[in-house]
């Protein structure tokens, strides 16, 4: 479907991986219940993500190739699909932070103390780590807040 509608094998691989993630996220929720086969759902999720991606690229907001943009099967996964898209945008901003910022935030997310982070990254002091963490996170929030597409998604 993706190759036929202007995508390349990398697009197809990426979209399928995204669809699997969406599927697994949903599978982790207590209300998870499928009325069709997993393959059928995966195909619908792929279609939904691919159409969104195409729309975003064309910026026309129109459906593409005569395919319907709404699909009752993928509706079941809508929340997870939206969350995935939001996460990808946030990831793109996170990855724009300087390496040291990503490392400090990353270790902090893994529950390392500021002192442990100082030792791991060979930094001058705990205070420096604390300040850097504060500035890095603030920078991330600033970058994300400047993206107009984020407001409707959060």
């Amino acid at each position: 479907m993706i190759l036929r509608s202007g995508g390349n094998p990398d697009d197809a691989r990426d979209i399928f991986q995204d669809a699997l993630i969406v599927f697994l996220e949903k599978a982790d929720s207590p209300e998870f219940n499928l009325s069709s086969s997993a393959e059928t759902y995966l195909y619908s999720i792929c279609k939904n993500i691919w159409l969104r991606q195409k729309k975003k690229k064309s910026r026309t907001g129109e459906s593409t190739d005569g395919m319907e943009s709404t699909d009752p099967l993928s509706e079941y996964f809508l929340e997870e699909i939206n969350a995935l898209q939001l996460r990808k945008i946030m990831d793109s901003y996170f990855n724009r932070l300087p390496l040291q910022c990503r490392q400090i935030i990353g270790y902090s997310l893994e529950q390392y103390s500021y002192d442990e982070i100082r030792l791991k990254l060979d930094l001058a002091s705990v205070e420096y780590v604390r300040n850097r963490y504060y500035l890095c996170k603030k920078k991330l929030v600033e970058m994300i807040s400047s993206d107009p597409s984020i407001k409707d998604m959060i």
Partner: protein
Amino acid sequence: MKDYDKTEDYLNGKLGGEEKAAFEERLKNEPELQEQVKLQRGVNQYLAEKKRRDALTSAVKEAGRSYHGSKSIKPFGAGSLWKAAVLIGIVLTTTVILFYYGSGLSNRFVLAEEFTPYLPGLNTRNSDSTSHWEDCFILFENTNFKGSLECFDSNPTPDSMLTWKMFVSGQSWLALNDPAKAQGCFAKIDQSEEALLLQEHIDWYLALSLAALDSIPEAIQRLKKLSTESDFYRKKADALKLKLEKQ
């Protein structure tokens, strides 16, 4: 970002009684502050879940690489990742089983690897979208293949749409792992004047059906035809031909 610190303290439960009340009072009246809280809460949530989600993404990518034979899956560590591993396993195994089980044929892999349905748009069919039989096409487009076949069985299709019905039904049978029935559908419209514009797709799906039925020489013949006549399928046809010839 003038309220960044205050918002962060509020979200982390660090504001005391009076300060908290004052902040919440402002929150009621200031839309800009409401946006700020929403945004920072969203970023905090993103960061809190980042580690788990990154691990899940890596697991899926790793499984994908492994499936394509370039790398082996490493053991999963966290509990939620076991679920991911098991589910990925189920999805992949189900796909393989669906195409092998009960067939006794060696080339069902062709369907598993090559088949994707061709979804004709409503405009392409130039049809009356208010007709009842139109629902059968919609079911097909929503990948409800079994439902589409049942629908065609229970609704009369106008003569002018019989070619499309056969084309779509053939694909449904392929999706349902019944290449013999699929071949029957495609053979009925093969080389017909009505199916002129669909001929390259018919050739492709016939090649898949034939390969899945172990009729390799006939499948290769179709693929050779596609290789010379179809820009759309040339690459895929060459690749599949090579694969079948190697066997």
